[in-house]
C-alpha cells in the first residue's frame, strides 16, 4: 500500500460525498414534479410521452398497481431483448455478421439486463450485433436503472407520507428519471469518454496488420454511449468481454476514475433525496455514514491483500503486488478500489479479473454482494435494500428497550418487519441453495476453471452475483451452459423481484400510517449510536448467513496459499 494510493482513495470518497447534495437536490425536484432548468426542452417530450402512452400524470397509484405496472413494463422489455438476440442475424447493423444467439443464452441475457444484473455469459464483441447492443442492451440499461430509482423514490414516499393510499405513479417516475436524470448526464458523459479514447462508431471491426506483420482484428462499435449508462445506471454489462478492463471500454486512468465516481453518484445522492423528502437531511447522511464505514473497511482489506501479492509471486521475488488479471494503467490501487465499488453498488463492471484476485482480496467483493449490495448499492435498489436493514435494526433496538420502534415518524410493526425479513432472507436462499446444488452435480462442477477451494468460490460468486443483481464474475467459470444459464437466470429473477415486491408492500403500508412526532422515548436516527447499530445488524445477519460458505471458499484458500498448497 502506498501513500499515493490512499490519496486516490480519499480523493474518490471526497468527490462522491461532494456530489451528494447537488444531485440529491436536483433529483428531489425531479421526482416531486417541480420545474428544473431542463424543463423548457424536456417538458414537451415528457407530455407527449404521457399523451401517447395514455398516462394521467396527476393520477397516483396504490402500491400494488405501481408494482404491477413495473412488472408489465418488464414483460415487454424481456420480449424486446430476447427477440433481438434470436433474430439479430436477419436485422441490420450487424457488420461482424453475428449469428442468432442460442435460446438459453438469450433467455439468460434478457433476464440479466431486465434485472439490472448484466451477468455476462455472452462475450459482447464475439456474440452480439450493434443493433442488439444498442436497442437491446443500451436501452434496457436505461430502463432497469430508471425502474430501480423509481422504486426507491416510491419507498421514500412511503416513509414521508401520512395516511395516504398511493405512493406515486410508476410511469411518471420512470419517464422523469430517464429524461431528466439519466439521459442528460449520459450525453455529456459519452462525449467525455470518447474524448478519452472510447470508440463510438457503427463501422465494421478494423483489420490491422501489426508491426510484426500479423493480422489483428480489432473490435469497435457504439461503445461510449453504452458505457455511459452502464456505469451511471450501475448496470455493468460490458460492450466487450473484458468489460471495463478492455482498453476501449476504459482507456485511461482518468476515464477509470470518472467511471468509479459515476457508479456511486446517483446511489449516494438518493440518500439525500430520502433525507430531504422525510424533512431532515441528517437522516440521509446517517444512512450514507453506515455505507461509508462498511465501504472503507472493504477497500482497506482488498487493497492490502492485493498489494501484498500471492505466495507464488513472493516466492519468486516478484514485488509490486498481484498483477495477474490487472491492467498496468490502473495498477493495484485503482483495480482494488474498482472491485470494491462495483460490488458495493450492484454495478458489476470490472476493470480487473476478480477470479485472479488473492483469496481475501476477492472475498470482500463477495461479502459486499452477500450483504445485499447496500453500500450505496444499485441505483435505487441499494437504498431500498438499506432501508430494509434499517427497519430491522430499529426493530432490534425496540426489542432491547421494550418500546414500539419508530423510524422517521413511522411506527415499525409486525407487517413491516415481516416484509423486511422476507426480502432479506430470499437472497441467501437463492445463492446458498443453488451453490449447494451445483457442487453436487458433476456437470456443473465441470464448469469450474480452478481446482480446490477456488473452484468452489467461483460457483458461490456466480450465484451470489446473480442473486444480488451484480453481474461481476469469477470469470473462469464456464457459465454459458444449460444448467447455469437457467439457474443463474432464476437467481437474478428471484433476487430482483422477490425483493421488490415485499419492499413495495412495506412502502404501501408505511404510506398508509399516520406520522407521529418524535417524543422523548424516540431513538434518534441521525447519530453515531444509530449508525453503529445498523452496521452491527448488517454484519451479524450477514455473518450468520454466509460465514460457513466463506470458510469453505476464500478463507480456506487463504490458509492453503500461506501453506504453499497449489491445486
Amino acid at each position, binding site marked *: 500500500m502506498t501513500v499515493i494510493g490512499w490519496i486516490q482513495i480519499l480523493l474518490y470518497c471526497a468527490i462522491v460525498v461532494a456530489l451528494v447534495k447537488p444531485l440529491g437536490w436536483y433529483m428531489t425536484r425531479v421526482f416531486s414534479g417541480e420545474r428544473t432548468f431542463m424543463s423548457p426542452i424536456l417538458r414537451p417530450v415528457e407530455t407527449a410521452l404521457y399523451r401517447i402512452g395514455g398516462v394521467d400524470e396527476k393520477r397516483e397509484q396504490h402500491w400494488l398497481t405501481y408494482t404491477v405496472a413495473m412488472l408489465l413494463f418488464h414483460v415487454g422489455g424481456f420480449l424486446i431483448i430476447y427477440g433481438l438476440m434470436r433474430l439479430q442475424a436477419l436485422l441490420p447493423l450487424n457488420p461482424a455478421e453475428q449469428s442468432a444467439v442460442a435460446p438459453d443464452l438469450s433467455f439468460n441475457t434478457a433476464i440479466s439486463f431486465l434485472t439490472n444484473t448484466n451477468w455476462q455469459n455472452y462475450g459482447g464483441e464475439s456474440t452480439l450485433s450493434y443493433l442488439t447492443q444498442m436497442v437491446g442492451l443500451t436501452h434496457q440499461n436505461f430502463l432497469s436503472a430508471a425502474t430501480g430509482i423509481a422504486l426507491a423514490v416510491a419507498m421514500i414516499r412511503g416513509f414521508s407520507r401520512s395516511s395516504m393510499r398511493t405512493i406515486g405513479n410508476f410511469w411518471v417516475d420512470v419517464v422523469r428519471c*430517464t429524461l431528466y436524470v439519466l439521459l442528460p448526464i449520459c*450525453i455529456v458523459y459519452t462525449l467525455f469518454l470518447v474524448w478519452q479514447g472510447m470508440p463510438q462508431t457503427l463501422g465494421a471491426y478494423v483489420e490491422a496488420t501489426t508491426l*510484426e506483420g500479423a493480422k489483428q482484428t480489432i473490435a469497435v462499435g457504439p461503445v461510449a454511449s453504452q458505457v455511459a449508462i452502464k456505469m451511471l445506471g450501475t448496470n455493468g454489462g460490458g460492450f466487450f468481454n*473484458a468489460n471495463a478492463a478492455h482498453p476501449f471500454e476504459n482507456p485511461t486512468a482518468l476515464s477509470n476514475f470518472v467511471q468509479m465516481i459515476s457508479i456511486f453518484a446517483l446511489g449516494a445522492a438518493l440518500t439525500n433525496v430520502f433525507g430531504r423528502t422525510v424533512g431532515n437531511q441528517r437522516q440521509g447522511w446517517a444512512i450514507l455514514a453506515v455505507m461509508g464505514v462498511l465501504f472503507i473497511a472493504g477497500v482497506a482489506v482488498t487493497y492490502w491483500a492485493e498489494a501484498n*501479492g500471492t505466495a507464488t509471486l513472493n516466492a519468486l521475488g516478484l514485488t509490486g503486488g498481484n498483477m495477474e488479471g490487472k491492467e498496468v494503467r490502473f495498477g493495484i490501487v485503482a483495480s482494488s478500489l474498482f472491485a470494491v465499488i462495483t460490488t458495493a453498488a450492484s454495478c458489476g463492471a470490472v476493470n480487473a479479473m476478480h477470479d*485472479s484476485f488473492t483469496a481475501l482480496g476477492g472475498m470482500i467483493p463477495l461479502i459486499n454482494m452477500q450483504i445485499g449490495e447496500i453500500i450505496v448499492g444499485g441505483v435505487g435498489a441499494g437504498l431500498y435494500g438499506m432501508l430494509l436493514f434499517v427497519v430491522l435494526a430499529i426493530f432490534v433496538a425496540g426489542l432491547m428497550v421494550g418500546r414500539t420502534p419508530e423510524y422517521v415518524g413511522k411506527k415499525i410493526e409486525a407487517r413491516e418487519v415481516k416484509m423486511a425479513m422476507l426480502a432479506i432472507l430470499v437472497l441467501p436462499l437463492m445463492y446458498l441453495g443453488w451453490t449447494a446444488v451445483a457442487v453436487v452435480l458433476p456437470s456443473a462442477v465441470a464448469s469450474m476453471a480452478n481446482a480446490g477451494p477456488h473452484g468452489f468460490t467461483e460457483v458461490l460468486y456466480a450465484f451470489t452475483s446473480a442473486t444480488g443483481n451484480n453481474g461481476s464474475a469469477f470469470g473462469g467459470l464456464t457459465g454459458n451452459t444449460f444448467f447455469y444459464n437457467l439457474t443463474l437466470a432464476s437467481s437474478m429473477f428471484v433476487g430482483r423481484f422477490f425483493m421488490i415486491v415485499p419492499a413495495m408492500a412495506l412502502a404501501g403500508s408505511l404510506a398508509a400510517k399516520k406520522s407521529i412526532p418524535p417524543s422523548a422515548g424516540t431513538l434518534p436516527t441521525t447519530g453515531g449510536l444509530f449508525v453503529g447499530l445498523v452496521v452491527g445488524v448488517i454484519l451479524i445477519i450477514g455473518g450468520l448467513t454466509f460465514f460457513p460458505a466463506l470458510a469453505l471458499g476464500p478463507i480456506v*484458500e487463504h490458509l492453503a496459499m500461506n501453506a504453499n498448497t497449489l491445486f
Partner: protein
Amino acid sequence: MLREIRPAILILLLLTAITGLAYPLAMTAIAGAIFPKQAQGSLIEKDGKIIGSALIGQEFKDDKYFHGRPSATSAPDPADTTKTVSAPYNAANSGGSNLGPTSKALADRIKEDVEKLKAENPFAPVPVDLVTTSASGLDPDISPEGALFQVPRVAKARNLPEARVRQLVTEHIQGRMAGLLGEPSVNVLALNLALDEASK
C-alpha cells in the same frame, strides 16, 4: 390494472426509440464530428496501412522489439469450433486467464516466464507485469521497469547503444495523470514505432 397495459406497451416502445436508437445514433454522429480519431478507435496508420490502435496492445515476439505483457486471449479452434486455442492479443475476443492465487497452472507459467527473463537479463529484478497476464489480454502498456528491463536485449538486437534505447524508453514513460491518478506506464506500440524510426 388493465389501464396499465397501454402505457406498458407504448411508453416502453417510445423510451426504446429514444434511449436505444436516437441516443446512440445521435452520439455516434456528434462524437464522430468532434473526436473523429477516438471515435474510430484511435487507429494508427503507417504507409497508408492500418497497423493497429494506439490503445490496443499487439503481440511482439521479435528480440528487436519491446514485448508487451503475456496475453491470455483465445480464439475458436479452426479444427473444432466448440474448443478454443490460445491466440495472444486477439482484439476480437478480450479476456484474462482467470487463474486464481492457488492455481498450479498459474504458478508453473509464472515460474517458467521468470526463468526465461532471468536468462535474458540477469542484472535486474524481474518486473511483475512482464510475467502476469492482463485483465483484457490487450493491455497496451508495460511498467517503466518492464521496459527498462528489456533495454539490453533490444539494444543488442538492433546494434544500438543501450544509452540511446534507454533514452527512448524514458521519453515514452507516461506519468500518473495529474501526478496522482493511475500508474506510470509505457505504451509498447508507440515505443516500438519510435524505435523503428530511430534505427533508420
